[in-house]
């Protein structure tokens, strides 16, 4: 067997402890937010009852008098939450006819400060973004005493959470399937915000946003019925059976921004390793044919990202493939745990599931380690991740055919990203750098596809080595921190100027800035090629003796060729133009791409027969690559091939339509 390493193990003991050591010493991050949670799952009631201890360090120079918590499960409490308000369906799922037990919520039953007073009475839901008083996704906890800079706050709380029937990943499905995300009171981030001032960054839950939180250690003990197979962020470090038959499993993970877990009785477990990383796949039996494909995709992602971004430090990655009835919990990233998605008997010529696995895994770098703010600047994770997804998938499965390859119909991931952007009805609909909740349309096309295409374009301009250096520098500098868009731009400017010089480096920066912060588009066009033979002067000329003389010039054998180029877009790129002459000679011209019209002229024995702007197709942002070239000696055979093919299919349809008459 090709993948001899693959072993399927249905486990009663779910992992051999010791192979997975989750403790990092010294810490990789500042660890300002640390959680110890001890919970019991009532799978029949879909509830958890838990105790949580938060150890939180004030890393700011401010004295704080309140804490803020994400309580995102409350977004699924009723239709009046900011997340659900104004919509009757979320991601194609109607939620208006939900029964009472299909809604979800979370409540802090009691909270107190270690060595201090009970704080429960002061709890208050606040709505910093939209003032919607019905929204309970952010909780304010006034402190009894101020928290000074550098001080550590320890809060003990008890909370209850009721999982909804899956909405936007979180929740339960039939047969005791659960995905626990947004499932515990999680502290917001106190940081320097985009306005340059210190303050809480703890947004309400909006439909198009995901997560943003501080780094820390998570130690989570889950007590659940023994029939459930569990998967969670980090490593399983302890397991014990209780007197009531329930099993308590303790998981630990350091230096992450979140903790997610899943439970389902029918998961099969596949395990594998890549260097120091345990890969653990939880998959329903009907999807087992995908196991090799998922693990292969994640292994390839690990080696590609290690080579081009940096080391994956965690000892584990858990891949959760939900059963079809719970597909809505799929396709999301959590630290050291990703959810993917597929169907029974997914054909091998369609590699969407592999691409999704690569995408979600790449989030371990951009989101989990380089923890930019997905709510305010989603392009910093989704755009970067889509770009790496394209690169990983095309590298693993081949250019021009990596995603789909069936009967001659084939395309790759990079092409798809470019076409999602260039194929937009209006590519100027808005800028990329906006908070997610401001997007009414084209969020994916701009944040994911345009960013990925922009990054690939500057990679083509700067070269692979320089681009690797930019990304590796950015990763090394900002891993386990919260960078903003401007922080990436600073690295981009620094490295590209250092490697490519002031002019080229500055140009790359300004191109990328216009991609992200403007709606400018790019379209270079070869307008025309005009060729004529040169004639000698003709007409009446002074003869030098005060008289006039008539001369009739001859047509010479010398050609004059003009190549007329246009810049129809707003963006300016320096471009190469390949000029081909009738004797087969080719020359490469350089054009700064600045003027709206540019003419290259040639005089000689040979005439120009074609011109090609950017022949290597480095500038993938160009809205129409077909008009980048023009030839005076076009081939007719492709036209003929497609026309005869059209004739053939028309014949076939005609022959088929009348089958009943």
């Amino acid at each position: 067997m090709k993948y001899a390493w693959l072993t399927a193990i249905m486990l009663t003991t779910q992992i051999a402890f010791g192979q997975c050591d989750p403790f990092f010493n010294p810490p990789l991050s500042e660890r300002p937010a640390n959680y110890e949670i001890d919970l019991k799952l009532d799978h029949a009631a879909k509830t958890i009852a838990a105790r949580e201890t938060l150890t939180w360090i004030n890393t700011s120079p401010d004295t704080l008098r309140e804490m803020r918590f994400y309580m995102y499960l409350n977004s699924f409490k009723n239709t009046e939450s900011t997340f659900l308000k104004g919509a009757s369906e979320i991601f194609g799922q109607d939620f208006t006819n939900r029964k009472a037990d299909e809604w979800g919520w979370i409540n802090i039953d009691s909270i107190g400060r270690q060595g201090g007073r009970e704080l429960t009475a002061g709890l208050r839901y606040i709505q910093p973004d939209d003032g919607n008083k019905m929204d309970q996704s952010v909780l304010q906890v006034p402190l009894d005493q101020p928290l000074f800079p550098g001080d550590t706050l320890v809060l003990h709380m008890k909370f209850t959470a009721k999982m909804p029937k899956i909405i936007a990943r979180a929740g339960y499905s039939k047969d005791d399937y659960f995905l626990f995300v947004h499932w515990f009171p999680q502290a917001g981030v106190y940081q320097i915000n985009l306005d340059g001032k210190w303050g809480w960054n703890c947004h309400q839950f909006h439909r198009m946003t995901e997560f943003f939180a501080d780094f820390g250690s998570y130690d989570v003990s889950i007590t659940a019925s023994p029939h459930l197979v569990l998967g969670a962020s980090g490593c399983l470090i302890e397991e014990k059976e209780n007197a009531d038959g329930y099993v308590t499993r303790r998981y630990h993970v350091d230096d992450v921004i979140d903790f997610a877990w899943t439970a389902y009785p029918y998961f099969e477990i596949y395990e594998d390793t890549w260097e120091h990383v345990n890969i653990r796949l939880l998959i329903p039996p009907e999807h087992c044919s995908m196991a090799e494909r998922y693990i292969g995709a994640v292994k390839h992602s690990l080696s590609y990202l290690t080579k081009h971004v940096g080391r994956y430090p965690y000892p584990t990655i858990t891949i959760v493939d939900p059963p079809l009835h719970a597909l809505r919990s799929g396709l999301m990233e959590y630290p050291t745990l990703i959810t993917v998605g597929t169907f029974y008997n997914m054909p091998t010529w369609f590699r969407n599931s592999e691409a999704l696995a690569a995408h979600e895994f790449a989030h371990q770098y951009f989101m989990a380690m380089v923890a930019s703010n997905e709510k305010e600047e989603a392009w910093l994770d989704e755009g970067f991740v889509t770009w790496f997804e394209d690169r990983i998938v095309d590298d693993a499965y081949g250019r021009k055919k990596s995603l789909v390859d069936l009967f001659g119909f084939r395309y790759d991931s990079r092409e798809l990203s470019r076409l999602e952007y260039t194929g937009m009805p209006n590519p100027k609909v808005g800028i990329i750098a906006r908070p997610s909740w401001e997007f009414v349309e084209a969020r994916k096309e701009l944040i994911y596809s345009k960013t990925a295409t922009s990054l690939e374009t500057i990679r083509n301009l700067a070269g692979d080595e320089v681009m690797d250096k930019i990304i590796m520098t950015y990763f090394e500098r900002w891993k386990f921190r919260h960078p903003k868009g401007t922080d990436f731009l600073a690295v981009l400017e620094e490295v590209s100027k250092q490697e490519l010089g002031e002019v080229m480096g500055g140009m790359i920066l300004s191109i990328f800035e216009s991609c992200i912060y403007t709606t400018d588009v790019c379209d270079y066009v070869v307008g025309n090629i005009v060729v004529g033979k040169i004639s000698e002067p003709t007409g009446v000329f002074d003869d030098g003796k005060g008289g006039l003389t008539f001369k009739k010039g001859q047509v010479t054998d010398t050609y004059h060729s003009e190549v007329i180029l246009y810049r129809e877009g707003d963006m300016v790129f320096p471009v190469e133009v390949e000029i081909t002459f009738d004797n087969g000679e080719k020359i490469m011209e350089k054009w700064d791409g600045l003027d709206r019209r540019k003419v290259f002229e040639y005089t000689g024995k040979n005439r120009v027969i074609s011109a090609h702007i950017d022949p290597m197709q480095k500038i993938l942002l160009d809205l129409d690559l077909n008009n980048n070239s023009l030839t005076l000696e076009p081939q007719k055979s492709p036209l003929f091939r497609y026309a005869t093919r059209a004739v053939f299919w028309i014949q076939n349809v005609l022959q088929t339509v009348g089958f009943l008459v």
Partner: protein
Amino acid sequence: MFKSFQNGILAGLSQWRMALTVYLFQLLLAITLGVQVYHVLEASIGNSLELNKLLGNYDHTVIRDLLNVHGASISPLLGQFRWLALAYLIFSVFIHAGILHAVINQEKNWLAFWKGGATWFFRFFKLGAFYLLLLAVISAAIWLPFLGFFATSPEYLSSEKISVWLLILMIVFYLFLLIFLFSWSLMARIKIIREGVTNWTAIRQGLFWLTRHCFSTTGLVALFFLVHVLIFFIYWEINDTGVVSLGWILFFMLLQQLVAYFRVMVRVMTFAGVSHHFAPNTDAPEP
């Protein structure tokens, strides 16, 4: 059944001239659109060097950029195509009447074809309308509830495997139904040509006979259907080679036209085969 299959093939081959006529008519109609496709492609990307990438079988970027930028000049062609298909549906009534007339009377001259077409056109037109209506009603009755069930089936069924297999089963069943309808409409037409009965009687007696010989008849049609599938499979396999030269393109054009001609031929063979199977001595229904 196999004897009728064999007989159909031989009878079809002997009617090669009639098949050629029908094929040429189809080709002529298709070319009127094909020429426009050529000109639209030429006007939109005819002078681009990217066009050369289409010498290979397919290039997603070139095609999608073409559709993005020049979609407006391509969509009128689709409109024309719809009208052409509708018009051909009506022509088909005439053509199939002609073929059946010639096949049943085992005549191989042009006259039999034209005469058959002209004689039976109006009656077959009404008959065709009935079967098309029946197809629409049956399709809606099957697929609307099934797809409704299918979309929510993961909620009820114990495994998605069952949903997928149910879908495959439904597709097979629907194919069988199409073959059944095809055989039925063919029986009815054969009955009318042979005995001159009314449409309604032909429909009734056709169904009666078909239900008695259901598996042998649908099996026979399915055999001819498999010939189609085989032809297409071979075509796809050959077509998907990266091609560059004009010689290859000409070869493909020939191959395509051969496939198109064979499809007409197989239709004639099917008609002849079913006509043989539904021989006069066996078609008398019980009173």
